[in-house]
């Protein structure tokens, strides 16, 4: 068990592209930590650099008290679970699980009993004599986890652990991982491009873009108080409404409509300042009667989400679109004239560079 600290870590590819750019991050002992970002943002590169599969260009990596920057992957006491699980197809499940022990030259009988023990913990009883090809995706994933557990590492690294599973199994596996991680108590870093996965699993999330850290925080922090417009639109199953506006006479002017200055930003903005007003669809509501302080518009699209619906409202003057999540029994019809209402404390302002205004 150990913490992970990277200092000014840079991974530069030939041609000058930086996969990881000046990364300073500390992952606490025992933490379940997510690296989140769109594809190509460098999250996998960072994970592989921690693993030692990529050589860092400069900067350092510490695992616990050990400086591992120039160590071989096998010496770092780190176990990795790959996206495709990387099980050895010609070996039995037991041999796969016990493979780290084979490399450590542990005797065969002990290897087998250890494989059984770990297999039990990951509900793989009765599968140990089979081959990986005979197992379902979920079972294969548990075998890959078991192989990682067998080597008793200080740190687990998971590369897109759920993305090779089909949708239903993915939720099941997510719950399984969420329960397993604190049981094992090993510091775990995982990479995902799926914000829902990161929010659901992680104790803390690092959101990356172009090799740079955008925000580091708990799921609640990154969801409710995104550091910038990129995080705001990337996190959340429906992305945040972001409307251009200006500050004028103690309120925000969007088109010709006025909304209240968000609670966080009060006293931090000046008249005439160009800003972006943000609000999550989940925090907005719809009123069929005139609501002072609301945004007036016409319903143009209604998307069914099951127990709720995603309503798109077009504002009259400039064609801005605002999306609102409403519960299933309150869906307005297409063409209805509505007012979008909200609590000012649930809305945010971003400055002209996209950074959130407020603490």
């Amino acid at each position, binding site marked *: 068990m150990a913490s992970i600290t990277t200092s000014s870590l840079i991974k530069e590819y030939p041609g000058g592209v930086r996969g990881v750019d000046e990364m300073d991050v500390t992952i606490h002992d025992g933490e379940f930590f997510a690296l989140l970002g769109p594809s190509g943002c460098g999250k996998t590169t960072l994970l592989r650099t921690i693993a030692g599969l990529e050589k860092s260009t400069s900067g350092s990596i510490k695992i616990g008290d050990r400086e591992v920057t120039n160590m071989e992957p096998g010496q770092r006491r780190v176990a990795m679970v790959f996206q495709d699980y990387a099980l050895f197809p010609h*070996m039995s499940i037991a041999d796969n699980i016990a*493979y780290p022990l084979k*490399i450590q030259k542990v005797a065969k009988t002990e290897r087998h009993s250890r494989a059984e023990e770990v297999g039990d913990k990951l509900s793989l009883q009765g599968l140990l004599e089979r081959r990986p090809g005979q197992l379902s995706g979920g079972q294969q994933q548990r075998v890959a986890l078991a192989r990682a557990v067998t080597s008793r590492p200080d740190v687990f690294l998971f590369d897109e652990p759920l993305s090779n599973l089909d949708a239903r199994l993915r939720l099941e596996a997510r719950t399984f991982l969420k329960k397993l991680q604190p049981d094992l108590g090993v510091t775990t870093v995982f990479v995902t491009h799926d914000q829902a996965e990161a929010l659901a699993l992680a104790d803390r999330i690092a959101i990356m873009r172009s090799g740079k850290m955008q925000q580091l925080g708990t799921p609640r922090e990154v969801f409710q108080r995104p550091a910038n417009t990129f995080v705001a639109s990337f996190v959340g199953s429906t992305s945040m409404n972001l409307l251009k506006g200006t500050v004028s006479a103690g309120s925000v002017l969007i088109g010709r409509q006025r909304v209240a200055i968000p609670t966080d930003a009060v006293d931090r903005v000046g008249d005439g300042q160009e800003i972006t007003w943000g609000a999550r669809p989940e925090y907005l509501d719809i009123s069929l009667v005139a609501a002072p302080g609301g945004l007036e518009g016409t319903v143009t699209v209604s998307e069914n989400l099951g127990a709720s619906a995603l309503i798109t409202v077009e504002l009259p003057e400039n064609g801005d679109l605002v999306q609102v999540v409403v519960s299933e029994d309150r869906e307005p019809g297409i063409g209805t004239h509505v007012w979008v209402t909200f609590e000012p404390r649930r809305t945010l302002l971003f400055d002209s560079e996209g950074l959130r205004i407020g603490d």
Partner: protein
Amino acid sequence: MPAPAAGTGPSRAVVDDGDVAGLGKARAVAFLAPGLLLISLFLVFPALWTLYLGLTNYRLSGSAAKNPQFVGIDNYIHALSDDRFFNSLGLTLIFVFGSAVIGQSALGFAIAWTMTRVRKSVRAVVEFFVLLAWIIPSSVTTFLWYAMLDRSNGTLNAMLSTGNTAWLLDYPLQSIIVFNTWVGTAFSMLLFSSALASVPPSQLESARMVGAGPWAQFRDVVFPHIRGHVLTNTLLITLWTFNTFTPYLLTAGGPDDRSNILPIFIYRLALNDGALGQGSAISLIMIIINLVIATVYLRLLKERKS
């Protein structure tokens, strides 16, 4: 619509009337005919002709050329009691083992394996030169090797400062083994390159993560993935090497039959000595040896799959 009761539904699909594609037999045969014709003309007929000639005393010239007599298995008895035949068979086995199984396979794999860890540009250059050896016409390559191994002005003697060593006279079998390895390595290299490319990188990395060194990675990850390719490669190059005639251009089987591998032995017997009947008999023995080798390999391949 109620489901049809068992046994009363349309049964066309289950009846195997030999017309799976639904073309009609006549049309199916018409489609196959050109291929069958070419195979018969160039493969089946020569084999049968060889079988026939091997049972006669047919000669290149003289009265037996005009009027060959049927001699039964005399040619086979003659071949199997001929020291030259067994000498040639022994040389062929050493030649095949040395230049194909060991030389081309091992060297081809070594190059392919090394090329997985070098820069792409280096790889392209190396592969270009290895391929060159394979695609240049053999008359040209043998000429180059002649110059290389020449006694008085040869490159090899100059490189090794070995004076006037006559490589082709003193080490004829070794020379053609090295020559054939050099020519044929490209095939094994290409085959192993693509085999190695099919090894999932994540499996190699998984092994690295638990501290597996290069040997353990090879044993536990790479080899199990390419085992089938090793067999296929060995089968093909064994057969090709067994049947190759190109070394004739270098040593002509000599000196004193010391590089007289079977294809050269047959050629000299049938066309230099004019004993076409005997040559055909030994050719048939070669065909049978080829079939035995192929059968053994295919068995191994099948066993591996099941």
